[in-house]
């Protein structure tokens, strides 16, 4: 697809989105097409039913959390800019843009980690509590393991990560426990044009 700016005029705020997220025009166009496809009743936003209609997503154990990550608190519809902003987290980190400082870019490792953190932290209090982690483990592994096993696993994870012993993992502790993992490698998607 060409990077013709004129083709993007029907997409509202296309240029700001491109600046903000680092997607190219072709990417934005493709994402917009996908957005239109998913938005079955053409209301200009995606709702839960639209997400549930994706067959592969339904089988994902943590689909509710992923869907929840798109929805800003208080709203029940995902508009296109929010859609693109969330997806921007998954760009590979070695992008050439360096206009803004790397902390603000959506695809910096810290932002990616924040995304994952928010997935765990459903009540948005800035900390992962034991119940929250146990819930995630149960969602992912319910079929395979017993609850007691998962309890033990969760306890051990907390022992490892919870450095100040307050029974909750803050974002910094979370970040520290994953410092040896190559986040950008794991949390990146090659976006097709």
């Amino acid at each position: 697809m060409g990077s013709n700016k004129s083709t993007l005029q029907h997409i509202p705020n296309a240029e700001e989105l491109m600046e903000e997220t680092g997607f190219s025009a072709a990417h934005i166009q493709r994402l917009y097409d996908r957005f239109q496809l998913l938005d079955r009743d053409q209301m200009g936003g995606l709702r839960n039913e639209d997400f549930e209609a994706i067959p592969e997503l339904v089988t994902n154990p943590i689909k509710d959390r992923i869907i929840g990550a798109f929805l800003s608190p208080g709203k029940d519809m995902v508009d296109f800019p929010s859609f693109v902003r969330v997806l921007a987290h998954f760009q590979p980190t070695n992008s050439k843009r360096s206009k803004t400082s790397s902390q603000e870019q959506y695809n910096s490792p810290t932002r990616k980690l924040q995304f994952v953190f928010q997935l765990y932290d459903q009540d948005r209090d800035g900390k992962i509590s034991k119940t929250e982690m146990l819930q995630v483990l149960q969602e992912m592994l319910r079929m395979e393991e017993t609850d007691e096993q998962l309890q033990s696993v969760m306890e051990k994870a907390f022992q490892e990560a919870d450095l100040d012993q307050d029974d909750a993992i803050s974002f910094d502790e979370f970040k520290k426990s994953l410092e040896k993992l190559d986040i950008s490698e794991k949390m990146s998607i090659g976006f097709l044009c």
Partner: protein
Amino acid sequence: MGRLCILGVRGRTAWCTLLLLLCCSGGDCESETRTPGPTDIQGVKPFHNEPQPQPFPEEEKANMPVFTMDYSRIQVPFEFTLWVLLASFAKIGFHIYHKITIWIPESCLLICIGLIVGGIMHSVKEKPPAVLSSDVFFLYMLPPIVLDSGYFMPTRPFFENVGTVLWYAVVGSLWNSVGIGMSLFAICQIEAFGVQDINLQENLLFASIISAVDPVAALCVFEDISVNEQIYIVIFGEGLFNDAVTVVLYNMFSYVADIPAVESVDVFLGVARFCVVSLGGLLFGVLFGIVAAFTTRFTHNSRQIEPLFVFMYSYLAYLVAELFAISSVLSIITCAITMKYYVEENVSQRSCTTIRHVVKVLASISETLIFFFLGVVTITTEHEWNWAYILFTLLFAFIWRGLGILVLTQIINPFRTIPFSFKDQFGLAYSGLRGAVCFALVFTLPDTINRRKLFVTASIAIIFFTVFIQGISIRPIVEYMNIRRSNNEKYNINMEIHSRTMEHIVSGIEDLCGQWSHYYWKDKFKKFNDRILRRILLRDSRAESSIVSLYKKLELQSAIEMLDTPMGDLSAAPSVVSLHDEMKEASRPKKKFPTADVRNMHNILAKNMYKIRQKTLAYTNKYKLPDESRTREILIRRHSSIRRSLRASSFRDPLSENIPKSQRYYSLQPGSDLESAFALRRRSHGRSLMKVEFLKQDIVMFSYIMGVFCPGAGGSSTRSAIPLSPIKERSPGPAPHRTPTVQQSEDEEGAMPHGWQPEDPQGNTVSRNPLLR
């Protein structure tokens, strides 16, 4: 340092003796059979004729020979053993002086030693054993190496990068062969170089031989460098999978070399042949792998022969592929990959270890011998040296590889999640070493090619150049260019959990974007695997998620570590010191403590450790096995420290202040606290006998571990780290020898209350524990 010198001297004298022996016995030397007979004893010289016959000739007595020698009978195995020994001594010798191996890869050193030995043999006019004849090489020496590569291949990164790997292997080899062949042909046209009689087909044939990157040589070099996973897996995979291409190209060009003209039909047939070769190899491999996995399902009653199946089936895969002239390397690799996953779950822990060790040993021997003989044969073959041709070969090999990597990477980078940077590309290009496969192939060139000797010399030159120059220089270059290195740190539970979460997230997002993702195939395969394959091929097909396996393994380690640190019962000070010393000595081989106690406990623990399958580290060191030995080492070290302390002084005051604050009881449920656990332990100390104390410690450890492994049994919620009551009443003896197989332990889970029992005030255990019976 003095000790090192002595060892070096002893090593050297051993070498010299061996060398002399070899020279005397190696090759085609005349073997003198000396028949036992009276001539030995009486020493009659045949040249002295008796001038007159004696009137009464003495009857020749046939005395029984006291000492005879019959060399020809044992010649072949004897020489083989000596060669292997010599090469292995060389290998030991290098590691005595550690600094050498940092800068010079082992392959270089082995070739050098081979050169020396070859020089000696040449000067004594001996011929080397015909080891690098193509049959011996391809049928006996190559399979173990390839099996090793396939068995220890890191599957996860491989399958994530399979497209890239195949792209480089197939297209890269083609590119290189054609490019080098064409350029050499162009060079041949120049009269001044005197190689005009080599036609295009022969050039292409030669090019196809030398364009293949050899995995053995390249990975030898990568060992200490630990480049990042992506480069590693691409080089690794490329080296292995370009075999299919090499085979096809070689056959095609050698067939074509006899025909004066090439038709388009031949090209088409070549492509078809490539498909047959590669897909056939994969198919055979998978077939044999599945049959092997199925066989091991039934071997639980004959554990000793379990390792045999792995080797026999993979070798069969190799041979059958050779039979049909399809890619045997692909066949054996696929067989190993398929087989490993299922076999390792079916066989016992011991067999698993045996298999891994034997694979490594065979591969090590093969590789050592190959490089060694490369050196030897270099000296002893006839060479034809042509400066122009050889130099241009080197040049073109280098140029075309670099160009190839550049162009191919540009094409494939958009499809990769993590594109290769220029530094990565340089690393890839520079690590294209050629090795013994190339050498063996060139020996199989038919004699109809009139410039065969030139080709042999040229390929030897290339191998030497790449192995020595590139091999030695790659390490400083990698460090200088700061190519991304891997960080194979220990995985902890958090990383495992969050990795899994991230995989789900990414998979979900990809579904959202409507993109085909490789997680899609991974998921599909996992479902197929769980539903069908595991049921058929595994004896015990319950799945255990990797998170929980890792958790169990870490718990086991921390359980053992917990007992290692001073706890106030047994002597604190020597334990601490000895523990630190032992940790420093981690690389030295461990001593054995063969008492019945230790062995029994070892058995029990090993059988319990059966349930944990070491998650294969994504990046396995070539010369070492995946490190499961740490837990066992800690166990044995613990016993050694116990024994030492018991001998030294039996009764000490409990040094309660030595209990470290950071001690964590992972199974300590909320509600119980650390202090009560320690209080109970301290209280029980004074009443114990010495030997019983020793047993108690280990029973404590057992029970803890049993508690780890059988959680939820009995559904007790009062599970806490309370020690057992002292077992004064028990007669000292080895711990009862439970032999839990997998099924048994599962069955007993429901029946048996788990390891930790709460103590009631009388100090008697409330419920019965089978360990105490």
